[in-house]
């Protein structure tokens, strides 16, 4: 057994896991807090990627690209929530799945109509170029930077939800909408904010993930499936779950590639199925939440 290879794959698993966690975060927030499954999560991811790509290639500024991605996704989230999702909170989960699934088609096909189905290149930003020597393992600098980005984002979201007044309102509004309403706080606006935040996170993941992926209208499908795997393993609605789920998924892919490369993709689905069958609430989820 080549220890060096195992170490390298372990590191790769962490980097992959960070990306997966970032992508799944938006989904788990919406699912956990609103009890709403957003099958359009991958499509919003794609919108963020394209928004960022357009601005980045035009201006050369990655920061502007990120800002655009966030804005695009956030606005998209608000629009979707106000026009459509709002009327679905009390409808059965199948309807929620179907409408977001349909939205995903609409969003993806619109992107395809505007940008064609060609794959676009998203260059790694200049501060991401280069190889870092991590204890004898050579690893792309950009991927390590993404780990940092994910960590910062997770911290920011955590602080927002658990340490601010807005976060308090959000959590209270979800636990007991009636009381919160009686207190004069607009619960509907809270829900909209949460949904838009989930969307913004998807867009953020989209723009940061683009240098590593092929940017095309269908890039969101794999992302959506992987996000499901992560939140299933980690547990729905749990922050820790998204992180742990992401890391586990990342390590499954990496280590499997090291030892049984032919089956690395399949293992992920097997893991997901196993968790759903044996412990549906995942590692950190709470039974009874949706």
């Amino acid at each position, binding site marked *: 057994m080549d220890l060096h290879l195992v170490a*390298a*794959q372990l590191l790769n698993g962490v980097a992959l896991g960070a990306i997966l966690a970032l992508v799944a975060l938006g989904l788990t927030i919406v699912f956990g807090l609103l009890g709403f499954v957003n099958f359009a999560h991958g499509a919003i991811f794609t919108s963020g990627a394209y928004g960022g790509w357009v601005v980045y290639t035009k201006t050369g500024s990655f920061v502007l690209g990120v800002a655009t991605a966030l804005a695009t996704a956030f606005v998209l989230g608000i629009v979707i929530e106000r026009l459509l999702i709002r009327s679905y909170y009390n409808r059965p989960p199948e309807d929620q799945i179907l409408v977001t699934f349909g939205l995903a088609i609409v969003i993806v096909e619109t992107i395809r109509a505007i940008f064609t*189905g060609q794959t676009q290149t998203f260059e790694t930003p200049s501060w991401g170029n280069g190889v870092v020597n991590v204890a004898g393992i050579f690893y*792309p600098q*950009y991927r390590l930077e993404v780990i940092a980005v994910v960590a910062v984002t997770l911290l920011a979201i955590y602080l927002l939800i658990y340490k601010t007044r807005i976060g308090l309102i959000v959590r209270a509004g979800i636990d007991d909408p009636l009381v919160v309403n009686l207190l004069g706080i607009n619960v509907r606006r809270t829900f909209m904010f949460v949904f838009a935040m989930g969307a913004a996170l998807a867009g953020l993941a989209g723009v940061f993930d683009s240098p590593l992926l092929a940017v095309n209208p269908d890039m969101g499908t794999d992302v959506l499936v992987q996000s499901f795997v992560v939140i299933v393993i980690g547990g729905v609605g749990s922050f820790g779950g998204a992180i742990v789920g992401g890391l586990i998924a990342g390590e499954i892919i*990496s280590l499997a590639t090291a030892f049984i490369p032919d089956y690395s993709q399949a293992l992920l689905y097997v893991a997901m199925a196993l968790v759903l069958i044996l412990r549906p609430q995942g590692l950190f989820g709470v039974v009874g939440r949706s």
Partner: protein
Amino acid sequence: MTDSRRSFLTTSLGAAGALAASGFPFPRLTLAADDTLFIGLLCDQTGSYSADGGDLQKGYELAIEDLNAGTGVMGKVLGGKKGVLGKKITYKIADTQTKPDPAVQRATEFITQDKASMFTGGVSTAEVIAMEKTAQQNKVLFMTGASGSNDTTGKDCQRYAFRSQCDAYMVSKALAPVLAAKLGKKRRAVYLVPDYSYGHSLADSMKEFTEKEGWTTVAQVVAPFPTSDYSSYLTNIANANADTFVNIEFGNDGVSSTKQAAQFGVLKKMQLVVPNISTYFADGVGADIMGGVYGTLPWSFRLQDRYPMAKIFVDSFTKKYGSRPRWTAQIAYDQIAIWADACYRAKSVASADVIKVLEEGHPIELSLGKVYYRAGDHQQVRPVPIVLGKKPEAMQGKDDFFEILEVVPGESVMQPLNLTGCTLPPV
């Protein structure tokens, strides 16, 4: 008006409105004119191989234009005659999405609805093999687009299909000795292989011929086709104790995997070899990476110095499109030329007659010199150009990525018929 009726009406009116606004082509019955022939073109306009597909499409359109007007290479080959046997060529282009199923569906439509005399195209071997079978089942001639797997004229060969690109065996047999001469005989190679017929075929052939020269194959890392994130595979490769990285990936996958390989430091440690370089590979990875890379190109515009027809082709292509052709365009153009020539020889466009003529193997002078089809497996006998990537300073023009080291004659590298595994079904 009841709620349900209202919502139904609004929905349907909305849908109808959308359709009308979009210029919905409410279909008319059209009858095929008797003085035209229809060719079906299957090009990868989207998907991993879309760049090559775009080049393919340009080649086809130029070919048909030249064919109908009697100009360009077509004019030279056919002696200025316009059209095929007095008939004008019409065509439609279908997007295969780099997937076999849309390719088969659209090809079948071309055959059953448009009454195609011939159909051609495809860039991935998966599509091409599927379309070969479609051709055989419907008994309509299929001239392949790009396809590099041995299986296309090997175990999946068909009587109604003819393949012009050099197969994996030819590429490897031609490339390996050059690699050994330039890079040495004791190298240790690690492969990145896309997990389908073409990938395995080329990897196996390269392994066979490089090992004959003394190389060791350290590992073959297989990745799903298509893949966008190669990190876990490249981690394996980076740690593989090898000095040569053989990248079998093609199209967008080839570009992504190579760029990511650079990010993982693989290209610093290892010499890159790309046995079959896809048409926009160099543009995608950039000349900094491409410089010093060994590989083959089924054709390059630089061959215009060697073959007069290539010069005519490059000139007419550049005139029409403003840029020089790549090798999928050359395949496209030449396949149509060979077909047209065979139709004239057979004095018929019926697939069975044309096949008989093609199997007779008359050499025809095109952009690769004289080429012809081998009757036993329908593989074209044609040269294999070995190339070396130019360093950015040496480039004379923004698409001048390669210098041609050697052009290996086709006869010397053809796979012996009894090894191909091909048994052609009857006409």
